[in-house]
C-alpha cells in the first residue's frame, strides 16, 4: 500500500470511528452538548435495529447451575422422583 493510500485509509478509519461514536452518543443521550463537544453533530449515524441483523432469540445459560432459573418456584419443589420416598432427606433422618 502506498503512503498516500495508507494516509487515506487511516483518515477513513478515524472518520468512521468518530461517526459511529457520535451515533452511539446520540442513541444513548440525545445530548446536543455531547455532540457539539465532539464537533460531529451534523453526521450522527442513524442506527436502526436492522443494523444488528438477525436476532438469535434465545437468552440462555447465565443462570445455569445457580439455581435461579425459575421465577416462581424453586425447581425441585414437588417434582422430584424421590418425593415421598425419603430419598431426598439431607439430614440422614430417613
Amino acid at each position, binding site marked *: 500500500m502506498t503512503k498516500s493510500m*495508507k494516509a487515506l*485509509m487511516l483518515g477513513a478509519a478515524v472518520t468512521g470511528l468518530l461517526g459511529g461514536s457520535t451515533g452511539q452518543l446520540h442513541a444513548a443521550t440525545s445530548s446536543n452538548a455531547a455532540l457539539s463537544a465532539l464537533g460531529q453533530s451534523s453526521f450522527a449515524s442513524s442506527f436502526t435495529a436492522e443494523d*444488528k441483523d*438477525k436476532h*438469535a432469540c434465545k437468552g*440462555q445459560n447465565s443462570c445455569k447451575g445457580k439455581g435461579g432459573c425459575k421465577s416462581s418456584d424453586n425447581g425441585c419443589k414437588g*417434582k422430584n*422422583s424421590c418425593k415421598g*420416598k425419603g430419598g431426598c432427606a439431607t439430614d440422614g433422618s430417613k
Partner: protein
Amino acid sequence: MTGELHQLQRRMAAAVMQPLTLDETMRKRDRSGRDNHAEAAGFIRPNDRLDSFERLEIYNRQYWFRLFSSFEEDFTGLQAVLGRKKFQALMRAYLESNPSTSFSLRNLGSRLLEWSCDNPQWTAPLGELSQDMMSLEWAHIESFDSASRPVLPVETMTSLSEETQISLQPHVRLLKLHHAVDNALIALRSDSGSSNSSSNSATASRIVRRFRAVSGVNHETIYLAVHRYEDTVYYKRLRLEDFYLLQAIQEGRTLMDAIDAAFEFSVMPEAERPGYVQSAFQHWMSLGWLCEVTSD
C-alpha cells in the same frame, strides 16, 4: 472430621457422577467392577421404602438428567442436524469423555468442537455441517456471557496512528462457516419459541425435548459475527473484508496491519476501499464493538 467429610463427599460425588446404563438407570457395577449395591450400602442407609442402592440411584439419575437436559438445550441445532438418535449417542459419548468439571453447566459444551474433530465417527457423514452448527451454538453461549468493556474513547480515536492497536469487545465472536447455519438455527428457534429460562426441575424420567430437523441448509461460505447488544445475542453476516479486518483487530494487530488484512483476499476495487473502511468502522463503532486494548 473434616477429612472424613471430604472423603465422604468424594465418594458420593464419584457414585453420583458415574454414567448411567443405556436404560438410564444406575449401573450395577462401576468402571472398576466394584458392586454398586455394596458401595451404596457402605455410606447410605436404607429406609422402609428404598434400599441404599435405590436411594443413591435417584441422585445418580437426576445428575445425568440435568446434564442431558442442559446439553440438549445448548445444542438444539446440532440435534436438528444429526437427528435425535445420533445426537443422543454423541451426547452420551461426549459427556462420558468430558465430564463436567465446572461449577456451572454453562461450560458443559466447551470442549465439544475439539472432541468432535477428534472423534468424527459421531457426526459422520454430516461432520462439517455438525461442526458449523456446534461452533455457532457455542459462540452464542460465549457471546451471551462474555464481558462488555467501555467503547473506544474519543481521545484514542483522534490520536490514532498506523501503529495503534485497538481491540474487539470480548462478546463479539467471529466465525467462518461452510453452511448457512445461522438461518437454520434462527428458524429452528423461532419454531420452538423463545425460552428465557432453564428449568431446574428434577423429574422421574427424562423429558426429551421435541425434536425438529433442519433441512436444506445451503452449502456456502459465510462470515458471521455473533454479538450481544442490549443483552440480546444477534447473528450478523459479514463481508469477507469485514471478517479479516475484525479478525486482525481481535488478534492484536496494528490498525494498518488490520486494514491490510481486510483486503488480502478481496476483489474490491482500490478506489472503493477508503469508503468501505470508513463505513465499516462507523458501523462497528455504532454497535459498540471496538474498545481499547487492555492488559488482561
